[in-house]
């Protein structure tokens, strides 16, 4: 019976679309507790000055806050106010770690779908790296806030890929909605 279940699972998984497909071996990094992911030595470690202000920052007091890279840990948590200031800059990538189906129902305007639970997330991270983003510049990742750890897991993947400045919006999309900030629906950012 177990053998039949394995065969059925294999067939079902083989015909599943990207949103329903799973790799047989999971690559989920622990997201709880202190960040401890160690990046492979082969990945180039960017070394900009840690205290340098972020270029292009807006002039408001919140926007003037620097978000220095943190190569020693995969993520730093930031508040909703910080997220708003980063969104206003317009040059900061926003990545949505929730399921693509949830992303479609509503996401932060400009955010891209990077569901940690879908099989193409590693390819998306690689493609994102290949786009030539400065690894020391802030990247905002978010999920559903509260107990949700998807954004931390995505930040860990980004860190492993070479990005040193993943910022986790700890209160996530529910907080963004509460603030009445711009939300887009559908497949596109």
């Amino acid at each position: 019976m177990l053998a039949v279940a394995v065969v059925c699972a294999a067939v079902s998984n083989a015909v599943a679309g990207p949103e329903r497909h799973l790799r047989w071996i999971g690559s989920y990094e622990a997201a709880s507790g202190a960040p401890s992911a160690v990046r492979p030595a082969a990945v180039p470690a960017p070394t900009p000055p840690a205290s340098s202000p972020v270029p292009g920052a807006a002039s408001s007091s919140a926007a003037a806050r620097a978000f220095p890279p943190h190569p020693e840990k995969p993520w730093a948590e930031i508040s909703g106010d910080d997220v708003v200031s980063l969104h206003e800059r317009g040059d900061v990538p926003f990545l949505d770690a929730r399921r693509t189906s949830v992303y479609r129902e509503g996401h932060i305007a400009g955010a891209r779908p990077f569901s940690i639970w879908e099989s193409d997330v590693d390819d998306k991270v690689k493609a994102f790296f290949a786009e030539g983003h400065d690894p020391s510049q802030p990247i905002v990742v978010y999920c559903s806030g509260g107990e949700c750890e998807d954004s931390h897991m995505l930040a860990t993947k980004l860190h492993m890929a070479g990005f040193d400045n993943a910022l986790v919006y700890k209160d996530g999309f529910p907080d963004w909605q509460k603030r009445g900030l711009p939300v887009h629906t559908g497949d596109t950012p």
Partner: protein
Amino acid sequence: MNRRFLSPWVTVRVQFVLAAFFVVAGVAKIADPPGFAHEVHNYQIVPGALVNVMALVLPWLEVITGVCLFLGIAVRTSARILGILLAVFIAALSINLARKHPVECGCFGTAKVQKTDAQRLTDMKWAIARDVGLLLLVAQILAASRADVRRP
């Protein structure tokens, strides 16, 4: 009393109830493997590398054993497998309840409604109670089929 409890009339209905429960639960999980993998991961019991294997195979095992029970094929084997699964579910929920780590049961796929930690902990208790009840149904099938085997 014991004879009535183990009668074919009761056993067939118990098989149908268990079959319906596990087929519905399995199909809901098969519909969204990444969602179920997420729920399995949240339990923080299964190693990360095995989460996907479990999320892919376990729902099919539920459906296949459920269908077998419904059709009356390999009833004892199916009941044993479901018994083992239920014991594992009860243990997984109990471990998380003991460490006060609220998780979605994931019994019927991904939850659509956001719940508070207190609601989740309460739901976990109800899920354990339900699984214990289902385990009793499995015991009934095993006892009845054993009695059938012994009967000349």
